[in-house]
């Protein structure tokens, strides 16, 4: 098992680059959506980056993840092409899903990314299925279900957790508790308030961690992966976090205290935390991180420029890929 203290300079820089890329992707989308040029419904992951990256840095392309409606971060962390994602969100033919999925359905089977999922709680049963495949192949790889405090109130998640325990499959449930299920506070909607406790009730270990701390996420994930590969079955990680934007873009967030987000951006920002930790540990130089910040802006600039210039799908695309053969 690799723990974060053993991560060398290159791995730490890669983790920071991934987190920064997600942040830049989402902050830029926030701006571009306001122009009206992006169709549909978009849910931003900004603020939660350390969870996606801390989890996926423990995985390879042969491991599986199943994501949520708030899935851009998971996609980037699992290695999906940022340009292809941006085109998908703009509804372009060259998007990762040919413009037929959009923000809530980005997938890349070649990266083990089995799909963002617009149905809250829809993903965990699918992740258990991928874990069954992993088990049949000797537990060399694992399957991760991302979810939130909202999904933790869905019966499908309970079914998936119980089945994972019963079948002892290498599944890992990552519950990102960002305090809000859509517009409703977790303090109201989660009966016990204890997501990890629910997972434990099904007979698996569950850790509660600070989701803004990349190192904590990475280490908890390392323990869960080791357990899974050792044939000991599923685990759950409950990561406490916040989201910087609304449930969807355009949500005025009238249910949040006026200064809540501004305060959390100061006290609970994962990128800031990562930098502070790096300065303390002398693992990576601040200048190296600054360079990554600049690089991320350029990358997303190019992705947006290309996406805007790209062609939309054509009529024939409406009819293709419903079936392989019909």
């Amino acid at each position, binding site marked *: 098992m690799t723990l974060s203290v053993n991560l060398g300079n290159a791995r730490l820089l890669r983790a920071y680059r991934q987190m920064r890329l997600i942040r830049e992707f989402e902050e830029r989308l926030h701006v571009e959506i306001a122009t009206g040029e992006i169709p549909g419904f978009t849910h931003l992951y900004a603020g939660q980056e350390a969870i996606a990256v801390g989890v996926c840095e423990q995985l390879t392309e042969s491991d599986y993840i199943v994501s949520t409606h708030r899935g851009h971060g998971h996609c980037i962390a699992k290695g999906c092409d940022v340009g292809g994602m941006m085109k998908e969100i703009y509804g372009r033919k060259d998007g990762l899903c040919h413009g037929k999925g959009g923000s809530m359905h980005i997938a890349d089977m070649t990266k083990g990314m089995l*799909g963002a999922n617009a149905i809250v709680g829809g993903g965990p049963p699918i992740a258990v*299925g991928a874990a069954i495949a992993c088990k049949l192949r000797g537990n060399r790889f694992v399957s991760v279900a991302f979810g939130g405090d909202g999904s933790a109130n869905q019966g499908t998640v309970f079914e998936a957790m119980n089945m994972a325990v019963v079948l002892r499959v290498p599944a890992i449930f990552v519950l990102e508790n960002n305090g809000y299920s859509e517009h409703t506070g977790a303090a109201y909607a989660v009966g016990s308030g204890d997501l990890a406790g629910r997972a434990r009730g099904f007979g698996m270990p569950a850790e509660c961690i600070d989701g803004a701390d990349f190192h904590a996420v990475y280490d908890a994930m390392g323990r869960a992966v080791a357990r899974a590969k050792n044939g000991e079955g599923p685990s759950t990680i409950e990561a406490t976090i916040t989201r910087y934007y609304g449930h969807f873009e355009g949500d005025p967030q009238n249910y949040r205290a006026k200064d809540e987000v501004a305060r959390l951006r100061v006290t609970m920002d994962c990128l800031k935390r990562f930098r502070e930790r790096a300065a303390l540990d002398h693992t990576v130089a601040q200048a190296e991180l600054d360079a990554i910040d600049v690089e991320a802006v350029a990358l997303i600039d190019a992705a947006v420029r290309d996406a805007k210039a790209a062609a939309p799908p054509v009529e024939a695309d409406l009819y293709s890929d419903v079936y392989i053969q019909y």
Partner: protein
Amino acid sequence: MPQLTMRDALNQALHQEMARDERIIVLGEDVSGGAGGTSGEREASGGIFGVTKGLLPKFGEGRVIDTPISESAIVGAAAGAALAGLRPVAEIMFADFVGVCMDQIYNQIAKFRYMFGGKSTCPVVIRMAMGAGMNMGPQHSQTIYSLLTAVPGLKIVIPSNAYDAKGLLIQAIRDDDPVIFFEHKALYPRKGEVPENAYTVAFGEASLVRQGEHVTVVAIARMVPFAERAIDALAKEGITCDLIDPRTTSPLDEETIIESVEGTGRLVIVDESPPRCGMASDIAAIVAQKAFHSLKRPIIQVTPPHTPIPFAPALERLYVPGPPRIEAAIRQALKDE
């Protein structure tokens, strides 16, 4: 050729396919049964209808998986396993239970390939027992194939006899698209000639069960043997009918139905699903649009009433269309004004 029941034909198909391809897994409630029981009998049931019997001892617990009663997790797990390269055959014990896992069927597996831009394959088969006639009441007797036929991305298979059941199930397992496979409970004991070897029956090709000249009858599942009885009785009076069993409702072999109607000009559709937005009304709409000028008489739909399925044998008998109703419908179709 050996005579097998539809149950045994399906069982044989599963055995032969699982031996052929080790990516095939079977999962569902009590598919072997006995796990965690006190008798120590590990294969205590082999499925409540016996369709999965003998699979566990032959293929082991890794590939024959007894699940908790969790239909969403069963279908979802089958979907995820399929995306990850396996070829799962999931079982929903009664088709009625689709009510608790509809999301995984119509939002997930049906849409993966389209919404992921053609970059995923989900070769999953979901078998389910359906149909009335065994006094199982409103929540264990429905057919629901009309609901799922309406969903783009799914293939819908509904065999009426042992030969088709085996060939269609093997085709379903080898097919790369998601397939919903309906098995009528009352047809499990129905015997027919079934070759020992593995063979496939293509989707979208209707079977012409009887050939005649006066009326076209389209029937599905258990309605096929009922229609056979009605048609054979009428043959003694010189009335002959085409009897078409679509075998799959998605894809639907419209051509065979249209061609027949162009010959007879009269159409009776026999469907065990409810009358509104059902297969009968769907087929009637297709014929009305594509063969209107061939029709000599209005299309007749023989279906149950717009009610839930009652428990009492006296009422269930009234609910399910039987040979007398089919015979009467054919006679009515022949009455010229």
